[in-house]
């Protein structure tokens, strides 16, 4: 019997540059190199049982280039699972014993190097967007050594941003908090020397609200916000706690990658960044109040201008991203109100820790602006509804003033660390 053998031996698996970076997961100190090495099906939709299993799958992908969609069981319902099996994925939970596979309904050849992200689904059902480790890696220049907090759900765009940074750059360590540790993350972070953290504005607001003193004990030098509209109030509050840290906000999505990075501590970005054509960098435009991004970091099949669905407003030389186009605009008797702008004003009240602004059905005007707020725990002289309404009335056109403001007792948050504000 003859056996055909390849004349070329298979290339040695590539070793990511960050393979010796430290990983702290559930309090245990590991490195990328020390993670287990299960064989992943190819293509696979891996539902990570825990944070360490998610990191394991990411490392295996980086080394072997197997086609991978990484998520958690809670984000993949029965319908999505069927959809993935139909699309040729082996779907399985990855735990300490390896992958427990569900065989694909239509087996197909794998696409080497392909990574799939599920968009967060705030606009409907989760959607698959194709990337590679390369298109997900947006930080390429040498970075100062950092220990990063990773508070995100495995497989989301934000999670991959922190994970690729640590996998591909030396001296970028990770401290991963599991969902059940999330409320106590400052304690974990301080214990392990976290000096850089990335989170949604809701994540930061919740942390400031729950225990600002514990937060202040984390030796942060880099603070990053993204995933939701970033308003001036949250930037100022973080600056107050960490006067020496760099406070940055990032506009990024599965579709267009990380497209806007702002380090000057102000909400929005300078208006002269619009329509600027720089090779290798995203081009930002505004069409009918919508942010349009042409990005080299786009997902597969999304070359060219991408309508982001995010609403922008130009104010005082800054382009502010105020919210989703389909939910940010409230029509009050023919006058357009941006929920994000109103939210920014409410969040600017010293006693307000968090705010959500929506339109509510009303007679005569069709809709009326209403709000929910969470008050800061240490607020001296707790404002009542009338005081908050007056604060807004002093700063907003009359039709934009929320007339009903409900006080909630805790900041609502979802697995994506967003509030859907």
């Amino acid at each position, binding site marked *: 019997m003859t056996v055909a053998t390849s004349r070329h031996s298979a290339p040695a698996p590539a070793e990511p540059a960050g393979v010796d970076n430290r990983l702290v997961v559930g309090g245990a100190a590991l490195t990328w190199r020390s993670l287990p090495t299960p064989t992943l099906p190819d293509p696979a939709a891996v539902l990570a049982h825990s944070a360490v299993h998610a990191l394991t799958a990411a490392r295996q992908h980086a080394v072997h280039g197997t086609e991978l969609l990484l998520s958690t069981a809670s984000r993949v319902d029965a319908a999505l699972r069927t959809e993935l099996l139909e699309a040729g994925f082996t779907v399985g939970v990855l735990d300490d014993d390896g992958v427990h596979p569900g065989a694909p309904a239509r087996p197909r050849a794998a696409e080497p190097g392909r990574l799939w992200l599920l968009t967060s689904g705030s606009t409907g059902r989760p959607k698959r967007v194709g990337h590679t480790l390369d298109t997900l890696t947006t930080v390429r220049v040498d970075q100062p050594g950092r220990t990063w907090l990773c508070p995100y759900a495995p497989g989301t765009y934000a999670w991959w941003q922190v994970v690729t940074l640590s996998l591909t750059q030396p001296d970028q360590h990770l401290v991963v908090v599991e969902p059940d540790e999330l409320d106590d993350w400052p304690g974990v972070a301080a214990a392990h020397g976290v000096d850089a953290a990335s989170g949604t504005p809701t994540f930061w607001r919740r942390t400031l609200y729950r225990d600002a003193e514990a937060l202040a004990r984390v030796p942060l030098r880099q603070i990053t916000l993204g995933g939701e509209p970033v308003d001036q109030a949250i930037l100022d509050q973080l600056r107050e706690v960490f006067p020496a840290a760099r406070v940055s906000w990032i506009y990024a999505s599965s579709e267009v990658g990380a497209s806007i990075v702002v380090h000057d501590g102000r909400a929005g970005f300078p208006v002269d960044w619009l329509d600027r054509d720089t090779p290798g960098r995203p081009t930002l435009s505004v069409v009918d109040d919508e942010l349009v991004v042409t990005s080299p970091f786009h997902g597969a099949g999304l070359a060219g201008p991408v309508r982001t669905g995010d609403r922008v407003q130009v104010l005082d030389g800054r382009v502010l991203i105020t919210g989703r186009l389909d939910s940010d605009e409230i029509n009050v008797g023919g006058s357009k109100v941006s929920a994000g702008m109103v939210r920014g004003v409410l969040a600017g009240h010293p006693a307000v820790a968090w705010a959500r602004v929506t339109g509510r059905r*009303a007679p*005569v005007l069709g809709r009326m602006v209403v709000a929910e707020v969470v008050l800061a725990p240490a607020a001296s002289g707790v404002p009542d509804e009338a005081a908050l*309404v007056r604060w807004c009335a002093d700063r907003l056109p009359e039709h934009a003033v929320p*007339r009903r403001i409900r006080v909630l007792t805790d900041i609502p948050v979802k697995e994506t660390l967003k509030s859907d504000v």
Partner: protein
Amino acid sequence: MNELSRAQIRDLMAQVLKNQDKELPGDDAAQLREIGFRSLDFSELALRVEDETGEELNFDAPGLRRIATVGDVLDFLVELQHQ
């Protein structure tokens, strides 16, 4: 069904105006234009009625009408609760 009386709605209307440092006159015939009660205020009042009763008002039910006085507002909202 929870229902607010005309007097209770009047109290809510006074609250809406008071929050703007305005006063609601006792006379039902007072002109809304003169006391500075406008469509935004009317909408707020309707939301307050909804919040008090926990019931949604059916704003589309009654036909268009002229609402010019305090009494018109109160009549309209009392009637809306029956739709």
